[in-house]
């Protein structure tokens, strides 16, 4: 008998925890998402029909799946945070969020994850939100296929697209981000991957990366961002197959590396950036099989860097190949292709017989006296460079590629 | 017609003209005589405005010529050494001059005919002999029927036939009441050309007399002898 009671109780529990689907819409029982949320319990699915909802703040405290049909619009009326996720295992899928509040005190977002894990935010369109998707202490969350677009013009009044703070094991995949302050922002985020995102025309950085160790970003495109991509104070970062394009400006970089160690930059394309990679205090970085094309400076390596290993890269059409500010060189250049190489290959092993010096005298002068840029492409500077090639005096003696390739690598 | 009032000109240390004053009238034919470097050519160039005097005035028909250019329409100038653009032919030079000096006056082409320059119209200036150049210069000076003719060593380099033709032309023009200014070393050929003599030395005007007066003063008929006498007297 006792066991029968047990079975009945268990059956009841099973039915009560079993997911139900609640619909929200004009012709449904629930007209608002908040009312549906009140009625819902964990593991329920709330389906939202197409409409414009003015719900003020939607606070999700139950482990539910919130799914939109044909992109229902959630409007924050320029005042509210639109969705706040305060439960684990929540899914937000298929909404159009617009007009979140803007504040200089609180980071108001389109969707914000508060200290929870296993959240999925997928297929949403965010338009004119302050911060887009915000994860604070999020763990193992997926942010996928969202499109975020903001229209701010001032950095101060603009938030980041995807903002992760003190999170772990995040997956940021296939999002499109533009018009924010930073496209993707990582601070104290570990073991995460950023894959196949497109971040363009953001006011500051396409990707801003700080104190975030052991992360990877792969096959992303960063174009036309105010200052390019910045990766700072981290170690164990893998940067593979990304495109860094057209980050032109006074202080714009393909990648700005600052205090980075034990990281990999491989198979990336740097095109038309003011500086392809700018390194400061970088240690033990492997830079391999990248293409540097039509940049102002392909590389700027400050003397504070060491053990940078540059090999098998293509340098094509850059104004300056390498710029540096000191004569101390603790980095290694080997087997790269330099289109400015004028050497020869007598033994036909496809490796030039004389070393290539990628630092020109004029680039040294410019590094020291930026105003000398006024003489850019003048007769005197090209004469100086020619002379320096014959009799090196100012350029660092051991900054050279001892085995430059005669033909570009197929990258 | 031309009044030169106390003009001076200095080239570096050399005083080319030193307080020269002269008056010339229409229908006169003036010989400008003096040793080499006495300032004859400089004086002529001053009248033509090619050299700007340091001080003094030049009046042409009672008008100051400083910064003027129109008065040169009244002047035909034959330089000592005629220099022309090397690449042009005689025909082109003459056409060009007609083109830039065109002023509704019938061209006086008697000298061009007389020197039979038309047969040589296709020749380039750089290929010409000094004599032919002089012929071109002379033709150009008379071409525009000017009121004043300034001839700097007109017969130098000309063969006797051409020289005669030129002299005839000068006498003709004088008869028409024009002012003719001639410099020459060959005094003998000036006898039948001139009515007045201006004698210059070291940039100074020594005297300006009519030929008749000179004859009276020196008792010589020949100009060359008269001048020689003057020079001797000066030295003495």
């Amino acid at each position: 008998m006792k066991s029968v009671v047990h079975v009945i109780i268990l059956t009841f529990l099973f039915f009560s925890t079993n997911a139900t689907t609640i619909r929200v819409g004009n012709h449904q029982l629930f007209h608002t998402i908040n009312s549906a949320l009140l009625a819902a319990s964990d593991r329920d699915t709330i389906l939202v029909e197409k409409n414009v909802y003015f719900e003020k703040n939607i606070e999700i405290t139950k482990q539910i799946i919130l799914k939109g049909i044909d992109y229902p619009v959630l409007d924050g009326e320029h005042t509210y945070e639109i969705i706040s996720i305060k439960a684990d295992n929540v899914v937000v899928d298929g909404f159009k969020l617009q007009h979140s509040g803007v504040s200089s005190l609180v980071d108001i977002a389109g969707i914000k994850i508060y200290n929870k894990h296993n959240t999925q935010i997928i297929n949403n369109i965010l338009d004119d939100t302050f911060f887009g998707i915000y994860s604070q202490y999020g763990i193992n969350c997926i942010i996928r296929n969202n499109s975020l677009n903001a229209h701010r013009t001032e950095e101060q009044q603009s938030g980041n697209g995807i903002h992760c703070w003190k999170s772990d094991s995040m997956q940021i995949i296939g999002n499109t981000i533009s018009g924010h302050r930073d496209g993707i922002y990582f601070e104290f985020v570990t073991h995460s991957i950023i894959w196949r995102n497109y971040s363009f025309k953001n006011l500051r950085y396409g990707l801003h990366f700080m104190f975030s160790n052991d992360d990877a970003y792969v096959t992303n495109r960063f174009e036309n961002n105010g200052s390019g991509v910045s990766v700072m104070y981290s170690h164990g970062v893998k940067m593979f197959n990304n495109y860094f394009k057209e980050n032109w400006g006074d202080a714009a970089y393909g990648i700005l590396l600052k205090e980075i160690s034990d990281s990999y930059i491989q198979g990336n394309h740097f095109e038309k950036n003011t500086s392809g990679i700018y390194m400061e205090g970088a240690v033990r970085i492997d830079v391999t099989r990248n293409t540097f094309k039509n940049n102002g400076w392909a590389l700027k390596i400050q003397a504070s860097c060491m053990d940078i290993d540059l090999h098998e890269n293509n340098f094509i059409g850059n104004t300056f190949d390498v710029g540096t500010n000191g004569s101390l060189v603790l980095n290694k250049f080997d087997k790269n292709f330099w289109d400015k190489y004028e050497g020869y290959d007598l033994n036909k092993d496809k490796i030039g017989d004389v070393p290539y010096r990628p630092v020109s005298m004029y680039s040294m002068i410019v590094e020291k006296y930026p105003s000398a840029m006024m003489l850019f492409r003048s007769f005197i500077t090209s004469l100086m460079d020619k002379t320096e090639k014959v009799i090196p005096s100012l350029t660092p003696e051991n900054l050279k590629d001892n085995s430059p390739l005669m033909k570009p690598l197929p990258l | 017609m031309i009044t030169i009032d106390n003009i001076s000109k200095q080239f570096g240390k050399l005083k080319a003209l030193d307080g020269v004053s002269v008056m010339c009238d229409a229908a006169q034919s003036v010989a400008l005589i003096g040793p080499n470097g006495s300032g004859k050519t400089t004086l002529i160039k001053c009248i033509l405005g090619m050299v700007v005097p340091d001080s003094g005035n030049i009046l042409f028909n009672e008008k100051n010529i400083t910064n003027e250019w129109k008065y040169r329409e009244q002047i035909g100038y034959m330089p000592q050494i005629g220099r022309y653009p090397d690449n042009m032919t005689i025909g082109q030079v003459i056409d060009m001059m007609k083109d830039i000096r065109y002023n509704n006056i019938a061209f006086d082409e008697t000298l061009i005919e007389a020197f039979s320059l038309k047969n040589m119209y296709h020749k380039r200036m750089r290929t010409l002999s000094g004599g032919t150049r002089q012929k071109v210069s002379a033709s150009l000076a008379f071409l525009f029927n000017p009121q004043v003719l300034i001839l700097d060593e007109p017969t130098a380099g000309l063969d006797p036939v051409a020289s005669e033709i030129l002299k005839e032309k000068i006498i003709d023009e004088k008869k028409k009441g024009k002012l003719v200014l001639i410099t020459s070393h060959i005094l003998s050929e000036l006898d039948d050309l001139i009515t007045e003599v201006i004698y210059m030395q070291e940039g100074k005007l020594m005297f300006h007399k009519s030929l008749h007066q000179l004859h009276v003063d020196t008792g010589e008929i020949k100009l060359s002898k008269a001048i020689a006498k003057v020079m001797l007297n000066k030295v003495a």
Partner: protein
Amino acid sequence: MKKIIKYVITDILRNKIVLAYTIFLLAISFSVFSLEDNPTKGMLSLLNIILIVIPLISIIFSAIYIYNSAEFIELLVSQPLKRKSIWLSLFVGLSSSLSIAFLVGTALPVIIYAFSITGLVMIVIGLLLTIIFIAIAMLATLFTRDKAKGIGITILLWLYFSLLFDGLVLFLLFQFADYPVEKIMVVISAFNPIDLGRILILLKMDISALMGYTGAIFKNFFGTNLGLIISFIIMLLWIAIPVWLSVTKFHKKDL
């Protein structure tokens, strides 16, 4: 005056050097564009030609022409012509014939291969530099009657504008590295038409960002319409002032 210009131009065009100059420019421009697969790189090579070769040829050719025309000038001066119009006719004649050579030799290939705003700016700057250096050459010839000396002076002037001036600027930069000299640099660039032209072209080539902070200052000045107008006025002054000086000097010259 029109007539004299006509004679000057026919005289220069009869001179085979201008024809050779045109063909030389054409050959360089076409080879630059057909050898480089990238038109931007071709433009950069052309930039060097415009900044170095064109001023050199303009200044030397004009000086030689003026010296060789001494007789012609003398002949004209004795005629009923204004000295001012004689001198200006020479200037206009030289300018138009060398400009035609430049337009055929360089502007034409640019229009065919790389027509853009940058290309247009390059053509305008090239034309201005041609005329500026003719004006400078004509002024220089009035300082000495000696042809060899005069040509020497013009070569020195070219060397000064294309090399020594920049050397001096570099030296000043090193000396005053600790001071904010960027704004002064904008002013200094006005004292060399080649530098001014180069900066104007480079700004249009969108390389300004390369120049960093300095570039920003240049862009803030030359990039604005006002700055552009001012710089073109300065370029025109580089023509007007030497021409005006040489006209006054020629007016008093003894021939």
